[in-house]
């Protein structure tokens, strides 16, 4: 104490005058002076002061802590330093003290990490085998990004990937934390550039000093910025964070300013003190994933799957039935002689086909059967008509004209033509009746070979070669002549058959001849006798379809003692018959 002693005289050297006064004072104030002295001694004695303080210190701390955080802020460096010092001096004691808590904390951290891994694994597995998962897998294949990344992005509501603590004035980075999924570039430069962009925006739009850019959007990233007096907190968010996260940032800024006001105030480029703000910043690294939809019950799943299966099968059957029906109708429509005017498919009952049908066309039931439709499946209402389709007209001509198998027909635009081979009578009859076949306007048979005429011609050639010899002056058959006559009779028999098949008669001339050794009258007579002898020999009466002329030719320069045959081929000619 540097003040004047109350026991001393206020006048100093005027001892004589103050002595009575002091004595009086001692008498009057002795108890108080004693108490003052005791108090002075108590105050001067540190041991006493500490004792006194110990009595009120807990309550004083409690009162101050309730009022504000100044005590906490003031004590933190001292306590931290004391703890550091203690740890340095006696690390074992600290290790022993922390062991129970540390072991538990480590176990908890490992369990939490494993839990996240299992949850992540579950999510990946779930998404791998779901429809949504297949969709995401396709997206991964298309974009070339890992499947896990697609799963994460698509199931992510939001995730705070990075948090920057930036000195507001200098733009220097004070602290930076990031989640494991984030790939941060240089945080120092990002911090400065972020500040530059904020300055740029504020300058550009003449915003006030306290106004600033609070949000940036870059693709699916958003940067939310919360500003404090000395520092800003910028959070890089993937996805859509709830507005309540702004409160988290605001509280973080306030907390950092409260806890580190002094380092912020005195910041000269050393960011070391802000290591202490890592926990606060890390608490902002939060994420939220989409909650998987409520798992449906197995019964509902089976019912849904069954219903889906039934629908799929029904659709498949419907599509197949429609496809086969279209095929059957198309086959009917393409069939010659059938015209489909209406084709109706009924779910419940027989299908219906209406239209026209030529009797000569293929049976529509057979066509439908080829496509799986029985008689009861389709009701046919086909009215008869005469089709002008080429296939049907040729079929009709064959039927009407009773054409031999060797005859081929062609039909084009009303013109019927025949080719192949046929006997003369049929050829004649076809010419007569073909124009009356339905659909035929003209008929031609130039390419049709007449088989009757060809046969007559061939037999006539053979018969012409038959020469029956006679002796000089005789009309009697010698044995050798009889033999030749028999062969001639065989040929005549063949011609008789041809004529019979053709429905007509054929004229044959038996010509007797003589040599020039006799007179003309003798020769004429004997040649006639010889012809008659042969007619008798071959028994002309047996040939009902042959008409014979006997002729005695007499002697000519070329003649000899023979009888020959001549066939009048045109006698059975259809043309001739027509004429």
């Amino acid at each position, binding site marked *: 104490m540097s003040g004047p002693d109350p026991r001393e005289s206020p006048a100093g050297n005027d001892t004589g005058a103050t002595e009575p006064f002091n004595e009086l004072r001692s008498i009057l104030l002795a108890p108080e002076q004693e108490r003052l002295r005791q108090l002075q001694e108590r105050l001067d004695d540190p041991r006493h002061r500490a004792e006194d303080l110990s009595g009120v210190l807990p309550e004083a701390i409690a009162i101050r802590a309730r009022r504000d955080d100044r005590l906490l802020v003031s004590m933190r460096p001292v306590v931290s330093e004391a703890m550091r010092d203690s740890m340095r001096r006696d690390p074992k004691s600290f290790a022993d003290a922390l062991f129970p808590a540390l072991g538990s904390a480590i176990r908890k951290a490992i369990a939490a990490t494993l839990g996240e891994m299992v949850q992540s694994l579950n999510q990946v597995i779930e998404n791998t085998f779901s429809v949504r998962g297949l969709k995401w897998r396709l997206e991964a294949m298309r974009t070339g990004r890992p499947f896990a990344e697609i799963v994460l992005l698509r199931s992510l509501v939001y995730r705070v990937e990075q948090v920057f603590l930036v*000195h507001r*004035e*200098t*733009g*220097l*980075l004070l602290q930076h934390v990031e989640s494991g999924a984030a790939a941060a*570039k*240089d945080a*120092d*430069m990002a911090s*400065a*550039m972020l500040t*530059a*962009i904020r*300055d*740029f925006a*504020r*300058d550009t739009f003449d915003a006030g000093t306290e106004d600033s850019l609070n949000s940036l959007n870059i693709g699916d990233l958003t940067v939310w910025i919360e500003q404090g007096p000395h520092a800003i907190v910028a959070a890089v968010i993937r996805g859509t964070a709830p507005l309540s996260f702004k409160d988290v940032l605001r509280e973080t800024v306030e907390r950092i300013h409260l806890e580190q006001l002094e380092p912020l105030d005195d910041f*000269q*480029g*050393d*960011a*070391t003190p802000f290591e202490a703000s890592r926990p606060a910043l890390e608490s902002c690294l939060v994420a939220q994933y989409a909650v998987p939809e409520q798992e449906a019950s197995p019964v509902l799943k089976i019912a849904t799957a069954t219903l889906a299966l039934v629908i799929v099968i029904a659709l498949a059957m419907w599509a197949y039935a429609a496809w086969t029906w279209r095929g059957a109708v198309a086959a009917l429509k393409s069939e010659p002689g059938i015209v489909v005017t209406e084709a109706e498919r009924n779910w419940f009952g027989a299908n219906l086909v209406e239209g026209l049908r030529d009797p000569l066309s293929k049976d529509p039931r057979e066509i439908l059967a080829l496509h799986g439709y029985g008689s009861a499946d389709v009701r046919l209402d086909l009215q008869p008509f005469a089709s002008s389709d080429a296939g049907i007209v040729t079929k009709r001509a064959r039927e009407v004209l009773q054409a031999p198998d060797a005859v081929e027909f062609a039909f084009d635009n009303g013109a019927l033509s025949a080719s192949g081979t046929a006997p003369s009578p049929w050829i004649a009859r076809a010419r007569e009746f073909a124009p009356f076949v339905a659909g035929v306007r003209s008929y031609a048979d130039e390419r049709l070979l007449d088989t009757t005429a060809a046969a007559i011609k061939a037999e006539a050639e053979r018969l012409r070669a038959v020469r029956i010899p006679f002796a000089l002056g005789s009309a009697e058959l010698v044995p050798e002549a009889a033999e030749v006559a028999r062969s001639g009779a065989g040929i005549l028999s063949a011609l008789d058959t041809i004529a019979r098949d053709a429905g007509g008669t054929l004229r044959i001339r038996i010509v007797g001849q003589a040599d020039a050794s006799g007179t003309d009258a003798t020769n004429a007579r004997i040649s006639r006798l010889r012809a008659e002898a042969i007619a008798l020999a071959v028994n002309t009466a047996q040939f009902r379809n042959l008409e014979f002329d006997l002729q005695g030719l007499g002697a000519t320069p070329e003649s000899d003692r023979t009888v020959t045959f001549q066939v009048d081929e045109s006698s059975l000619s259809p043309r001739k018959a027509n004429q």
Partner: protein
Amino acid sequence: MIQKKICMLGSFAVGKTSLVARFVHSIYRDQYLTTVGVKIDKKQVRVGDNDVTLILWDLHGEDEFQKIRSAYLRGSSGFLFVADGTRRSTFDKIHELQENAVSAVGDVPFVVLVNKSDLKPEWDVDAEALGAATDRGWTVLETSARTGEGVEDAFLAIAESMLRR
């Protein structure tokens, strides 16, 4: 680790960007200069026992069409003023830039870099002008973006000046 913000200032086309291009870590394109008006680079130097990270704010060259945004200067711990030795006007401009910097952030360390020392025969900035600047107490260094001469020294000089504060 100590961080410091440094602004690089100079007239248009004095070679600020080229000067540091080979010596700094950069993740941003030069187009930032013409859009936002600033490009951020980073340079680490060691001064004594201290590692110092210099966050370089390469500001778009000031000319008659575009003024420097003073907001960018705020919080700067030092300046690198760059002039083109072949253009006297860019050197004279540094007086104005330095005054603007002082009015914006106060008296902070700075170093004047006269660039294009590889073209010294063509210089328009004479010894008298350089001497006058030195007499005013300025630290003047000659640099070349082409050869790299003096660039590291410039970063070291500004870092030392700032740490001395």
